[in-house]
């Protein structure tokens, strides 16, 4: 993920799908009435990685991400996904385009009137011609992968917050999306549930080989899962880079943001690169 100093800043051809950058945002501005929320955002999100967008509450993270799949339209600027200008799409191509995405909402946004199974089957029934048996099998597979097998007949009201988020992810995964967006996935969860959700995001990214975009301000969680981080502050991208680059960034607001969340250098060993190193070491030890 890169911010204002986007790769190929000069003569880049955004109409060509880039092997590294999956989503590319250029000069995005959005205001609601007189309230300017995003001001000339330039951002690139890396293919197949976990890209985290951080920022204070109300900074405009969700607003930014909703532009990726054209749930909102900007005042100026563009978003390119695999060389496609999102805002130039007509109604029907846009509908097809949106199937590239799976969106996991902050509070899951499950349909109250439908069971877990029907919630997960909803996108399949809408967009495929699969038989009932095939749909049932896909749903069972996705739920089982997230440890939810056996909850098919339950209704959202009967589930805990963490389970609802996992059902939300299962629903987002049934159409095999290329890009998964998580809107504040750990908000309101206890530490253990937060860790479970982090594991779920990493597992989904690896198992289904998707580009993940996570909106969060939970820095402990961010450093556990992120391959790349971008910070949104005062309507612009303040910094972007790898977790190490973000941790070492000189900007006082950013370092203060990280410090205030209780995640400093001392906790740096919890980040994703170190986790994979540790896992490799443990695997090697186990093998020997």
């Amino acid at each position, binding site marked *: 993920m890169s911010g204002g100093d986007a790769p190929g800043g000069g003569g880049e051809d955004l109409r060509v799908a880039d092997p590294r950058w999956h989503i590319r945002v250029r000069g995005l501005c959005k205001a609601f009435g007189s309230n300017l929320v995003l001001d000339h955002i330039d951002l690139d999100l890396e293919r197949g990685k976990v890209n985290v967008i951080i920022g204070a509450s109300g900074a405009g993270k969700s607003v930014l991400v909703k532009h990726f*799949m054209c*749930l909102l339209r900007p005042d100026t600027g563009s978003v390119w996904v695999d060389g496609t200008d999102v805002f130039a799409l007509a109604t029907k191509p*846009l*509908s*097809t385009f*949106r*199937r590239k*995405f799976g*969106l996991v*909402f*902050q*509070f899951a*946004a*499950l*349909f*109250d009137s439908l069971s877990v199974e029907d919630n997960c089957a*909803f*996108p399949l029934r*809408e*967009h495929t011609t699969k038989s009932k048996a095939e749909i049932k099998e896909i749903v069972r597979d996705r739920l089982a992968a997230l440890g939810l097998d056996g909850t098919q007949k339950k209704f959202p009201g009967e589930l805990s917050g963490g389970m609802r988020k996992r059902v939300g992810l299962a629903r987002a995964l049934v159409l095999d999306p290329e890009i998964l967006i998580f809107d504040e996935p750990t908000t309101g969860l206890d530490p253990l549930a937060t860790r479970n959700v982090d594991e779920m995001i990493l597992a989904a990214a690896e198992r289904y080989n998707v580009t993940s975009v996570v909106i969060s301000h939970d820095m402990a969680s961010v450093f556990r899962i992120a391959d790349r981080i971008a910070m949104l502050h005062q309507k612009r991208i303040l910094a972007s880079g790898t977790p190490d680059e973000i941790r070492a960034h000189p900007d006082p607001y950013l370092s203060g943001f990280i410090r205030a969340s209780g995640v400093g250098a001392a906790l740096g060993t919890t980040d994703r690169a170190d986790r994979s190193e540790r896992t490799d070491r443990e695997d090697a030890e186990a093998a020997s």
Partner: protein
Amino acid sequence: MSGGAAAPPPGGEPPAPAPRESLVGAVGTGVRDAFAPAMRFLDIVGGHVILLMRALSWLPRRPIRAGNYVEAAEYIGFGSLPIVLLVGAFTGMVMTLQSVYAFKAFGLESMAGGITGKALALELGPVLTALMLAGRAGAGIATELGTMRISEQIDALESMAVNPVQYLVLPRVIAGMIVTPMLTLLFFVVGMAGSYLVAVMWQGVDHGQFVYNAEELIRPMDIVQGEIKAVVFGVMVILIGCYQGYHATGGGRGVGLGTTRAVVIASVSVLVIDYFLTDILLTVLGGPGDT
């Protein structure tokens, strides 16, 4: 201490008067303020019309999702049936009771059935049915869609490439358009049954005279006129419920306010539109004096 405006010394220059708004600016502000309620009203009306047009533009497009239409018709129609029948029966009964007592002095109590039927077919049927729907189905739809809006379920639909207007609004509006005339017709039927019960069984009006006068007074065109009104009211009441729910903001309180607005706006609109619609229908279809 420094800073702040010090009081002028006695005998010094008086403070400069605050800058006054220019006359043109003041007039502009006044006109804008005066027309603000009208602009808000037009804004709301326009919003409803746009939502209706957006919904109808999806009508010929696939997927059809027949289940959604059936579900909406079941909720609006079948769910409202008991209350509509109850209100219809007692409206016919009380109307007849009043008519019998009023006309007894003139020996015209046998006219009670015909007069009640005329009122039920032309006004009471469509209007009271629409008011019942506003209180039950309109409020229920506003709450349901409002809850879906604030819990991001509508955004979820959109993110799954499902158009929420086509999925949520269109089936309800079409269902309202179809089932409201049916409910109105049933309202009329049970109202007439109640009228017969009171007039013939309890008040001693002759069966033959009751039926004869009813047939003489109630024209088929009265029923048609009531059904046309019912179609308009059905669309209007359900559309208002959808609009208030679809555009709900501000959490639970916003949903509550939307629901209240849905009932109030729909009820008032039914009564106001009824007058103008009656005027148009009497002109187009002809009044009781026309043959």
